[in-house]
């Protein structure tokens, strides 16, 4: 199929960008969206033009690097899917596709479609961990965990830190991401010792990074490639209230 692409081009974070229009030809419906970009970039290199910079790593939907805002939706038209797992059979000959970077002041554009998502790392560093001595892992059966809780913690742990939630949110809020980590650790005994300081510190860091507050619109949940539920956000709110007002 032949397609028209309108892609955001921006030299670096200090300059202003604009949309460039490209034509790609003979795209197979079996290619992934990123492979289509590879074809385009080969073509641009041969024409001695600047290829489009985009993030990617695993290309199997688990690393969360492939941030692209495609036709108004993070990670494109398929639900619970990453850009790397989006395939060209989603499109038909003659389509025009608009590709933009994540837009949030906390995620500055570095080049073209690549944004700096280190703000997420700093939120995790603020409390998204457990402090344990290293050494031999203890026997797993020493810490019995109710099945329902283990499942719920696992569902929250599925977050890949891609940032689609921030990109979709009208407030550029990082609450879905932050709440997934808080929920996971608050459900497990290993998370118990740092339970209060974790939620307080992570929210302080989240606010400091310049993410917005949550209006509970649900846009994050709708675009999350891992189906993280906004119930995590309500649980974070409870953890936050518990951590100070209630002893």
């Amino acid at each position, binding site marked *: 199929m032949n397609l028209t692409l*309108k892609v955001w081009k921006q030299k670096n974070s200090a300059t202003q960008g604009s*949309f460039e229009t490209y034509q790609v030809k003979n795209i197979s419906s079996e290619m992934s969206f990123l492979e289509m970009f590879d074809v385009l970039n080969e073509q641009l290199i041969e024409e001695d033009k600047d290829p489009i910079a985009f993030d990617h790593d695993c290309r199997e939907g688990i690393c969360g690097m492939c941030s692209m*805002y495609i*036709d*108004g*939706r*993070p990670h494109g038209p398929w639900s619970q899917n990453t850009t790397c797992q989006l395939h060209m059979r989603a499109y038909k000959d003659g389509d025009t596709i*608009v590709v*933009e970077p994540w*837009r*949030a*002041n*906390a995620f500055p554009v570095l080049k073209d479609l690549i944004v700096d998502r280190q703000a997420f790392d700093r939120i995790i560093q603020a409390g998204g961990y457990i402090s344990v001595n290293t050494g031999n892992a203890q026997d797993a059966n020493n810490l019995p965990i109710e099945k329902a809780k283990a499942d719920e913690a696992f569902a929250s742990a599925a977050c890949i830190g891609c940032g689609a939630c921030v990109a*979709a949110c*009208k*407030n*550029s*809020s990082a*609450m879905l991401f932050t709440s997934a980590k808080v929920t996971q650790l608050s459900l497990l005994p290993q998370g118990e010792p740092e339970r209060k300081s974790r939620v*307080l510190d992570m*929210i*302080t860091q*989240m*606010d400091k990074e*310049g*993410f*917005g*507050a*949550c*209006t*509970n*619109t*649900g*846009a*994050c949940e*709708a*675009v999350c490639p891992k189906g993280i*539920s*906004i*119930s*995590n*956000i*309500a*649980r*974070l*709110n*409870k*953890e*936050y*209230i*518990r*951590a*100070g*007002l209630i002893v």
Partner: protein
Amino acid sequence: MTWKQLFISSVGKKVVMGLTGISLVAFLLVHAGLNACIWANDDGQMFNKAAHFMGSTVITRTLEIGLFIGIILHIVQGYMLAATNKAKRSIGYNVQLGNRGSKWYSRSMALLGSLILIFLAIHLSDFFIPSRITHAGLETPKFYDGDTTAYHDMYRLMINRFQDNILAVIIYIVGCIALAYHLFHGFQSAFRSLGVHNKKYNQLLTSLGYGYTVVVILAFIMMPLSIFFGWIS
């Protein structure tokens, strides 16, 4: 959470919104219930006595002060949230996600709130200000059989406001519709902000929110309509 964080952190601010929002929801139910006394069709006796009661006990007057503090907090905090949230994305998208991820009214809480605020100003100057401050239109007290108390004839004030005044009726209906959409989202959202995370309860609260809103808002809309069409007089 410290008291300071309650007002400056993103999560704390939402706790304030949720608490004040739910208080307003509770007030609205009482307000609708009392106003429904106009349908007794008894020359306003039941309604005027109920209004008199609300204005004359220490408890209700104290609650009234609480209500004013609550609504001011809600308005100030609401606009602050709306402004700071908007400032977090300086460069917008070319193509919007729009309704694919969320309901339009959940993204329009500040706009709906502004419509409510305009309506509230009109509403207070119609009834609250005459009742408590200027007494305009309430010069003649109302007496009922077997009772020496002189009542403010709020009932008459209300009838006069909507009788033959289609514009006032329309303003009230628009205000009520804005409030309905504010609550379609706000009712369940407030509980989420306060930490209700169990999906079973969230579903229940969403349904309860729709039910509450439809009943209360329809009751309010029927009041000016009943007067305008002369169903009560």
